[in-house]
């Protein structure tokens, strides 16, 4: 790779370029950073772990729901979302958002 006219590369940039060639993992990391520039400086850290510890669908909580309704009364109703989006973060689940949960009373297909 030839040096460009804008000036000599720093030692760091040089090292990074070499890394991309030597390590496929670092090349993949560069790809990821290109797509998600805000990805945490602390990789694999608390974000993953906390998400992991909170696995499970958050369901309807009447307390949260009523609080949210009270707040909403003063604001005009926003248009309903076009598609069913995943319930994340501060979104307060409403009865309409909940998927139906049923016990599987059907026998396992392995037992046929």
């Amino acid at each position, binding site marked *: 790779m030839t040096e460009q006219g804008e000036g000599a590369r720093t030692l760091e940039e040089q090292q990074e370029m070499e890394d991309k060639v030597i390590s496929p993992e670092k090349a993949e*990391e560069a790809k990821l950073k290109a*797509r998600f520039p805000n990805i945490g400086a602390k990789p*694999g850290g608390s974000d993953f772990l906390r998400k992991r*510890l909170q696995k499970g669908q958050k369901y309807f909580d009447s307390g949260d729901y009523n609080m949210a309704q009270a707040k909403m009364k003063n604001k005009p109703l926003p248009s309903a979302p076009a598609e069913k989006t995943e319930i994340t973060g501060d979104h307060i689940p409403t009865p309409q958002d909940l998927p139906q949960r049923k016990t*599987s009373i059907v026998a396992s297909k*392995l037992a046929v």
Partner: protein
Amino acid sequence: MNSANHKIRTSNLSRPGGDMQWCFSQVKGAIDDDVAEADIISTVEFNHTGELLATGDKGGRVVIFQQEIDNKNVPQFRSEYNVYSTFQSHEPEFDYLKSLEIEEKINKIRWLPQKNAAQFLLSTNDKTIKLWKISERDKRPEGYNLKEEDGRYRDPNTITALRVPVLIPMDLMVEASPRRVFANAHTYHINSISVNSDNETYLSADDLRVNLWNLEITDRSFNIVDIKPANMEELTEVITAAEFHPHQCNTFVYSSSKGTIRLCDMRVSALCDKHSKLFEEPENPSNRSFFSEIISSISDVKFSHNGRYMMTRDYLSVKIWDLNMESRPVETYQVHEYLRSKLCSLYENDCIFDKFECCWNGNDSVVMTGSYNNFFRMFDRGHRRDATLEASRENSKPLQVLKPRKVCTGGKRKKDEISVDSLDFNKKILHTAWHPQDNIIAVATTNNLYIFQDKVN
């Protein structure tokens, strides 16, 4: 259970001058591509004799297969596994306090060694462990004095003689009943259970804690490991798997999301937060990338049957550790190294978080683990040979020998090879099990269970 006591009938995995040869035996489950979530297999486990094979699924159901004892002395024909019992182990529950659903998915099944006519197993979901008794009934009493056969009471005035009821044979009935429910001891999600060699206790591990139970006592459990930091912001690693040593009832190990394994001795102190041994492979800091920690997370840890080694599975490799050497593994096997240059997309589709299990064969000479595209890998430790095989309906003619598969990593793709980009990452083999004595393996694809046996010459 001392492995020296039972005969290891395993024939050598590799033939002199030849490759390992595995044949299709059976496949269980539906053929259709539309997989219901409840049918996703979540655990597979042989019992201590290999006569019984249990599976658990996302719908909370357990299916147990039994090996039919064949009287024919035909070498090519090995007994088949047929359905023995099936029951609903766990139901979906709701944690009202946190407004969270508790999945009924069976995370692990562990068999207890057989003590009497009945069989016992532990099955667990994210929060509750249950001890199930599976018993057979093949006789029923007949000839009661006070009751008719259909249960109606007889008019006492009509009874003129006494008789002794007799037991008459009936069609075999297999009943599963929950004998113990071990609940409310885990704030986080249970990932492992392991029965102690003392046959009295077992451990259960969640993301941050390990608890010790007595099989008879359900209202109490001892916390033996607690890695929860005082401030959750300081959380850096979680427990991913735990297991008791096969012979030493005081020893257990637990693995972490950072790629370390800690061995603990319960004789040292009541709370085993301080490990006796720490197994960690040193890493070259210049090789570190965003993915390093994620792919080093250990998804499974298993002691060898002889108790001298343990095996760990991380995203790309299987490592064998000598319990006497903490500094590095004694053997490392690459499962699918070609995925290293695909980590970005595997991170985006969440596959990088897939938790693969691993298992030993009966005499600890071969290890096995799953991969993508319904491939699974075997590593013959002694002969330094490895194989890639595929569990698919296309190779499911009776006793059909499985052809070794090969993934092409670049350049020219040879005939019969498959390129990395053509791999189906939705077809993952996460759960495999090896018969404790014979060369019979159970391999679970998403919703099917394959049973393979080695080719007997």
